[in-house]
């Protein structure tokens, strides 16, 4: 018991340390703003998973609470600048959190009366409704241009002006850490446990005295609070909020983060948020086709790893504990190498298509994997297609030794008996 508590404390300490030290290694502006983006995404994705992973509520409208929190925060920040409102910027995320909570109380009352598909549909409707409002009320939402603000409007507080991105990063990291701990703590409370019970079997929850509607409602309200905090950190970070932030696309994005990371584990969405934010900013600067790759990646995850990256990691825990993981490494390496082949073929095809469709008039030659390629020539297409097809076959073959390695590991684990 105490040893599990100790390891939990150690996990949090390491997390804090990593968050504190990261800017020392990533000093460039690009890296720092990406880290800030990740921190915001982590809070948002974890708040989303309070619904999906913990309570079994598939929401297509969670960005409503993020976005409205962000808008209210932008107005609050501008009011601070105009001298009509007094609050250190450091504490501004609380305003967004309360705003998120407020809208969670209102909209959640409607959405959580149902679960399953009706809940998903109603949440989608609310997202569409709020997005429509964004165009109807330009005074509040700023119309197409959104609401711009300036995080340096507030008085410097204990020397924090939030001019430098480093200060913003630490603000986000601090709130991110607090929110992670708070959301984890919530999973350990009676409400958190009953949320799991309602996810598993709402009817049974009724027959042990709980009203599943009330459980869902409370969880949604709390998760909106954290979404609002994430939203206001977004306001402080980007200094602009637009109608896109409340929309269905933003809601879909957080779903993807949580799902890719793994909704079955508390830390899954953290992994998803980090990875997706990274792909969004890094991949998009490399290739126009990044959304396509991102979409394909999501599809493959849903098909082959529905438990997300977190479950891909946790299946290895028993083997790692037993010291058997090294046995899997060679076949994993083999599969990784084999996988690179069809990836290269596929990427070549995608990139050449994009190049022909969008950039051919520029006359620029295409550079792929360090080679100059002429996409107008049929040979490269044929070669790429062959590489893709042969690569898929190669990859499937490479899975055979991997499967055998897993079988031997599982057999050994079984022979050693339950731990």
């Amino acid at each position, binding site marked *: 018991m105490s040893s599990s508590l100790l390891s939990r404390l150690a996990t949090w300490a390491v997390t804090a340390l990593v968050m504190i030290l990261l800017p020392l290694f990533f000093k460039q502006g690009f890296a720092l703003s990406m880290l800030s983006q990740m921190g915001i995404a982590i809070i948002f994705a974890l708040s989303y998973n309070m619904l999906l992973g913990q309570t079994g509520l598939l929401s297509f409208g969670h960005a409503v609470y993020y976005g409205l929190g962000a808008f209210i925060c932008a107005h609050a920040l501008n009011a601070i600048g105009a001298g009509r409102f007094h609050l250190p910027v450091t504490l501004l995320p609380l305003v967004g959190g309360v705003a998120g909570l407020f809208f969670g109380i209102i909209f959640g009352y409607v959405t959580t009366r149902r679960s399953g598909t009706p809940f998903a549909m109603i949440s989608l409707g609310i997202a569409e409704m709020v997005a429509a409002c964004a165009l109807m009320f330009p005074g509040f939402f700023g119309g197409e241009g959104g609401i711009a603000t300036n995080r340096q409007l507030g008085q410097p507080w204990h020397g924090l002006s939030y001019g430098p991105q480093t200060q913003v990063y630490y603000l986000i990291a601090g709130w991110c850490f607090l929110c992670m701990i708070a959301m984890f703590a919530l999973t350990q409370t009676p409400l958190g446990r009953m949320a*799991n019970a309602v996810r598993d*079997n709402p009817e*049974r929850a009724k027959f042990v005295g709980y009203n599943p509607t009330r459980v869902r409602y409370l969880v949604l309200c709390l998760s909106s609070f954290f979404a609002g905090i994430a939203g206001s950190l977004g306001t402080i970070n980007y200094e602009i909020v637009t109608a896109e932030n409340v929309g269905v696309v933003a809601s879909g994005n957080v779903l993807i983060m949580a799902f890719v990371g793994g909704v079955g584990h508390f830390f899954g969405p953290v992994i998803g948020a980090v990875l997706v934010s990274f792909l969004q900013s890094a991949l998009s600067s490399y290739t126009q086709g990044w959304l396509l790759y991102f979409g394909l990646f999501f599809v493959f995850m849903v098909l082959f790893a529905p438990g997300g990256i977190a479950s891909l990691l946790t299946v290895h825990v028993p083997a790692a504990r037993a010291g058997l993981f090294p046995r899997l490494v060679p076949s994993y390496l083999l599969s990784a190498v084999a996988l690179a082949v069809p990836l290269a073929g596929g990427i070549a095809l995608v990139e050449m298509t994009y190049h022909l469709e969008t950039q051919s008039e520029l006359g620029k030659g295409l550079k792929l994997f360090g080679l100059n390629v002429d996409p107008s020539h049929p040979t490269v297409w044929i070669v790429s297609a062959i590489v893709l097809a042969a690569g898929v076959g190669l990859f499937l073959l490479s899975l055979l030794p991997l499967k055998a390695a897993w079988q031997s590991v599982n057999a050994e684990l079984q022979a050693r008996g339950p731990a």
Partner: protein
Amino acid sequence: MSQAALELKGVHKSFGRTPIINGVDLAIAQGERHAIIGPNGAGKSTLFNLISARFPVTSGQVLLNGQDITGLEAHEINRKGLSRSFQITNIFPRLSVYENLRCALLWSLGYRYSFWQRVGGLKDVRARTEEIVDKIGLSRRRERPAGMLSYAEQRALEIGITIAGGADVILLDEPTAGMSHSETRDAVELIRTVTQGKTLVMVEHDMGVVFGLADRISVLVYGRVLASGTPEEIRGNPAVREAYLGTEAD
């Protein structure tokens, strides 16, 4: 005259235009072990679903300890001290055995929707959960996800969830269905211990279980109570023999 723990007055239920329960009157005394038997389709499970508010009654009244509970929601009835199990196992499959039982008793210990207390730190919750885990004999399985238990273990867990909240009136819907002889024997022992001092109503097909456990038996045929009485009275009742026991014995 002492008050009945559970009383049904003229309870009717129709699905669409099909009547399933045709005016059931039944009074079950405090501390009584009462079995409801009857041929398939007689409406036994439906009757349970009406009492526990899984379905609304079409007409009639249900009284729990003299209090009218007709029209209340299932969770409200549970909070008043009536708990039930299900014919088809109804547990929290992804939660561990321990977690299943803990969730089943949080409300009864007054923790409601608390999100400001750490559930692991609640001593009364832990003590009570441990007690139930031991009682239903699943101590060795406590960390296992409930969905991965054997059938008999799941049935034991089902009973554990039902009694965990300390309800006074327990409804068990075919607790031994699908069990082997030895499993049934264990289940009967379990039911006997966990319902000590409580009012038990159960639907059961196994006549050995019924006559071994019940103080009183009601026979339900075509949505009506054909007869109600002690096991001896029921055994000797010619109408029952004709309608039910006779055909069953063939």
